[in-house]
């Protein structure tokens, strides 16, 4: 997809209160372009519910339903049911942060997925509670500094995209703010599929991750290039790596060093070599697990890390 062929209409309007270099606005902008504005957003507590501005105005050019933290997927299910009765094919999209997905929103998400609700659940994952000033979440990676893990988090993240794979839903994919065209195409594909669809976007957040604000896109790419964030898509159970991750999995591209990714962020600046080794172990395991899902690619990915 050429950039010039993308939707030109803007659905995230300028002059909002998001931080400079915000990954969430740029991702949401891309998502709504891909949906050509034919969408209703359900937004639980997260940065977006704040940067869209106070009543009586909204910085988002499609209808938004602001709902409670725990209930985004349930709210979306209800709205979709009403649309179905009215014969409307408007896409109902949950736009939640990792807090509203991994932690507080998890039971509603799992329930809606299991019921096979016809909604698109998108998690923009900046790996912490940034809206309330950077606290750890279930998505915060091992070793990362937050205000509640000020010596570095001692646990690895859980992986909700994997959890969604095991829900057996028709569409699960990951994307990164580093690759907006890939994100655009994935949303387009998800739009063609009916049933519960889950898309998770890595959203490098300058104030929370402590890197300069012009590096948002760069950081999104580096996460994938270093293997820390893996791009994949699973349509009706057919799993495949995509983009740069596909090249890595097929051995056509060497991973960049994990250090380059980690140490360019303030939140990881205190890491000791043994912490990095621990993260590397986790990443290798993840690759092996996913490679097994793809089947054809043998699990020799670990060799990139020796």
């Amino acid at each position: 997809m050429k950039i010039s062929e993308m939707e030109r209409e803007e659905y995230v309007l300028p002059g909002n209160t998001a931080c400079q270099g915000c990954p969430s606005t740029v991702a949401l902008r891309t998502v709504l372009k891909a949906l050509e504005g034919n969408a209703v957003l359900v937004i639980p507590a997260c940065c977006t519910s704040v940067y869209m501005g106070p009543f009586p105005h909204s910085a988002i050019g499609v209808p938004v339903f602001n709902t409670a933290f725990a209930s985004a997927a349930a709210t979306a299910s209800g709205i979709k049911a009403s649309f179905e009765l009215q014969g409307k094919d408007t896409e109902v999209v949950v736009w939640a942060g990792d807090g509203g997905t991994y932690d507080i929103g998890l039971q509603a998400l799992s329930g809606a997925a299991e019921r096979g609700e016809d909604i698109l659940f998108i998690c923009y994952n900046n790996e912490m509670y940034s809206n309330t000033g950077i606290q750890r979440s279930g998505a915060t990676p091992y070793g990362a500094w937050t205000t509640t893990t000020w010596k570095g988090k001692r646990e690895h993240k859980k992986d909700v995209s994997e959890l969604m794979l095991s829900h057996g839903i028709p569409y699960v994919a990951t994307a990164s703010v580093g690759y907006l065209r890939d994100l655009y195409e994935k949303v387009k594909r998800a739009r063609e599929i009916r049933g519960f669809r889950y898309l998770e976007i890595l959203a490098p957040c300058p104030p929370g991750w402590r890197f300069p604000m012009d590096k948002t896109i760069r950081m999104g790419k580096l996460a994938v290039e270093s293997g820390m964030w893996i791009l994949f898509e699973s349509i009706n159970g057919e799993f495949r790596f995509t983009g740069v991750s596909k090249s890595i999995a097929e051995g056509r591209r060497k991973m960049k060093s994990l250090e380059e990714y980690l140490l360019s962020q303030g939140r990881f600046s205190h890491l000791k070599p043994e912490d990095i080794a621990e993260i590397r172990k986790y990443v290798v395991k993840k690759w092996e697990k996913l490679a097994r899902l793809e089947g054809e690619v043998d699990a020799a990915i670990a060799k990139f890390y020796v």
Partner: protein
Amino acid sequence: MLISIRFHGRGGQGAVTASKLLAQTASEMGYYSQSMPFFGAERRGAPVISFTRISDEPIYEMSQVYHPNIVVVLDPVIMKVVDVFRGVKEGGWIVANTTKKPDEFVFGQEYLNIVAVDATGIAIKNDLLVAGMPVVNTPMLGALLRADIPLNIEVLEGIVARKFGKEGKKNVKAISEAYEFAEVKLIHGSGKRRYPKKQKIKVEFPISTPAEGVAGKTKLWRDFRPEINYDKCNDCLNCWLHCPESAIRLNDRVEIDYDYCKGCLVCAAVCPKKAITSEREVFADV
């Protein structure tokens, strides 16, 4: 017995600390107590409220205090902007940091007890200053104990002495001076307390409409101003695609909307032609 106290002050004056110290005093004397701040935009200088409840039975109320027995006003001028008498029970107490006399207070209740004390003066006299600001919260607690409240000044002083270390002595002195010098008087009010009129509540679904500039013209956030050098630009549209602010418009060519561009410079970072440079922003109009 349930005594509810509301503190009014400005950010930085220690209203929250005062309400905590009071709750702690009650607790050490064997009462049940709670203390909670009202969370708003607590910037320095902004009006703040904090609450304390004291009882001889467990307290199950967890709400803000709407009908206090006692109101403590830490800031002499805050009465101009905040109705500190609001909801105070008939015969209740106003403990005010003021140079006024109790007779000069005007309110809508029939009767209120006024405790007037110049806590700012006491703080200055005792050299109780933090960052140039007189510390009024501790002397105000001293004055508060003149109200109808079964707390013991020695217990309060003990806590303050422990808590404030080096500064403890001065604080204790200020507490006892405020206790001693506070003027207490039962004052007749106008009795014309205005109760809010019963209103028909209109239930409306709060629906916002899309608009640019919900945070105003965000150009003022900009430290750096991106400039497109059109000689180098090949219309690849990468800057447009990646701008987090939707501040790059697609007209005949890419154009930066300088009303809203926040100056993050993501556009410059993604431009493959290095066609976007940046300069320090200087606003002539602000």
